[in-house]
């Protein structure tokens, strides 16, 4: 066990899968240049050569079809997009070619593709470098959608994703990149489609997605001070969704808040809220609430950007409202921001 960061965990998983299986290759715009896709492709070209780790033209549309074609013939592409906003330039290939392909052949042709899609905040990124659009890929059939929130999970789930014979969209939040955790050095899998109880608690269930788990943990610590015990469930995989773990948690706590790092309207948070409202109908003491991006494009100015994103403060306030208790004094608490980045360990 060694302390490693989320970004290093991604690199390790990629490295060991490329070492293990010579059909695995990785490509994406700029991934061989010195920035190395935020460090995640460090050393890959040197080790595996430029036919297995390469840069591409700024042609997301055709490149999405390119990786698809290569997968049909037995390769295992990892296609890296440093923003979800760029990834959707491949929408036609995703929605019209990749989504139905496996179904056309009735599940008989392995189609191992991993799209590594980086989401999240920087500073002042604005409307075109901030979208998540997690919901799009859960809405259309044919994709597995994963959004890990810790170094341990990202390593295991990326390993599983690369080994999976289906198209996987793998969302990595940039603010998680520096988080650290002690994890196993050798490679390991984590099962796709299994959620995780990040923190146990009896008073309310928070279903948090990707980075929002970090905010939820922070919020939980604050709430703990007034003896509120939050249970945090990280679904980790958004499709197929581990409904069971969510439902059984809510049945216990009888209250639920869903916190997404995406817009809420027709979002994954809506799906989860709809499922929980239906499945926990008899247990719920309060309606399910949701938090997510404000329903506007992401503005650039710092104060507006801060207001755009949900954070631990919003979570605390939402929990207080659900529990119908007075809002506590949060003065002096410094929340995460681009200046105060979370480093972990979790």
């Amino acid at each position, binding site marked *: 066990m060694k302390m490693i960061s989320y970004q290093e965990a991604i690199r390790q998983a990629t490295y060991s899968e490329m070492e293990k299986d010579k059909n695995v290759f990785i490509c994406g715009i700029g991934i061989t240049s010195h920035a190395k896709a935020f460090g995640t492709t460090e050393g890959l070209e040197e080790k595996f050569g430029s036919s297995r780790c390469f840069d591409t033209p700024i042609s997301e549309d055709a490149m999405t079809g*390119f990786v698809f074609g290569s997968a049909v013939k037995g390769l295992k592409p990892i296609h890296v997009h440093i923003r979800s906003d760029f990834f959707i330039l491949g929408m036609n290939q995703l929605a019209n070619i990749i989504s139905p392909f496996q179904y056309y052949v009735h599940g008989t*042709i392995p189609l191992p593709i991993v799209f590594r899609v980086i989401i999240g905040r920087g500073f002042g990124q604005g409307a075109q470098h901030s979208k998540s659009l997690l919901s799009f890929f859960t809405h259309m059939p044919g994709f597995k959608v994963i959004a890990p929130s810790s170094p341990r999970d990202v390593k295991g789930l990326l390993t599983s994703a690369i080994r999976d014979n289906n198209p996987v969209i793998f969302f990595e939040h940039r603010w998680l990149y520096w988080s650290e955790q002690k994890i196993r050095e050798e490679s390991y899998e984590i099962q796709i489609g299994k959620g995780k109880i990040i923190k146990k608690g009896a008073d309310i269930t928070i279903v948090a997605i990707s980075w929002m788990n970090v905010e939820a943990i922070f919020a939980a610590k604050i709430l703990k001070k007034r003896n509120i015990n939050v249970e945090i469930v990280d679904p980790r995989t958004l499709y197929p969704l581990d409904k069971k773990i969510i439902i059984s948690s809510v049945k216990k706590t009888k209250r639920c808040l869903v916190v997404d790092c995406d817009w809420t309207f027709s979002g994954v948070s809506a799906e989860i809220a709809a499922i929980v409202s239906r499945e926990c109908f008899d247990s719920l003491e309060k309606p399910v609430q949701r938090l997510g991006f404000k329903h506007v494009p992401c503005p650039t100015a710092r104060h507006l950007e801060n207001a755009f994103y949900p954070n631990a403060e919003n979570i605390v306030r939402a929990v207080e409202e659900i529990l119908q208790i007075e809002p506590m004094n949060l003065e002096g608490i410094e929340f995460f921001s681009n200046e105060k980045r979370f480093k972990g360990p979790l």
Partner: protein
Amino acid sequence: MKSNLELYKSLYLIRYCEQRIIDLYHENEMRTPMHMSFGQEYIPVGVCSGLDMKCDITSSYRSHANFLAKTADYKSFFYEMYGKEDTVGKGKCGSMHLGDPKKGHILSSGIVASQIPAATGLAFANKYKKIQNFAICFFGDGAIDSGCFWESLNLACLFKLPVFFICEDNEWAVHTPKSDRRGYKDLKKIVGNFDLYFYEEESNDAEILQKKVNEAKNKYKRNPKPIFFNIRCYRYLAHIGIETDWNYNYRPKKVYNKWKKKDCLKIQKDKLFVKYDKNLIKNTEQNIEKKVDAVILKAKKSKSLNSREMFKGLFYEND
């Protein structure tokens, strides 16, 4: 490379299968919109045989000729048209999405140009694995309007991939002619200036085409660059469906008459008459007809996928 007789057999199989669709479509049992290859058959026949069938192909929704030229699998063809279980697609695909990846027809796509990028990936995989196989994308002249085509062309040339871009240039995108869609006069001067081998063809002769394709393949082997063929052809029937469309007056019938004279089956058949006995040709044709007819009968009676199994096959599960 195929003999004249083999070429003719392939052409005849395609033509006859489509003829049967025309005959039987009114029965309303083939519930899938038909984009007919009628008249354009020489293209996939010439191209695939020019590569000795060592190729993987992708095609547009105008897929019948491509599927049959590549796989010769008229059984799957009709089972899929009738929406029956005993095919790769199990009736999920119909006419627009015909394909059998294991037999080298990877997919047919109903979104103009969207089948093109996949071919670059197939070619990349072959190159990566050092397999001597070409990838072919068949697409209509309309696909060149799409950015997806230009990105794929650029990728293929940059990576020097073993891929054939085959433009089935029938002049029309539904009812819109090239001149209403193109901001340039000469495609050759544009596409031909990418790092590739550029060919044009309008003979309607599968034999000539197969030679040129074979030559292009050899060029690739000496100096690897993708190959682009702009192949003129003529769609005999309406854009969609089994009827002719002269009544809409959007294209002059006299052009049809010109093409009809050099119909691609006629061209090959005329050559056979020189070499073979008339009866042999007739027998060959009848043989094909008999087999196809038998399959159609079986297809009609064959069973469909139980709709309770409709969720199967969304994911590959045989891990």
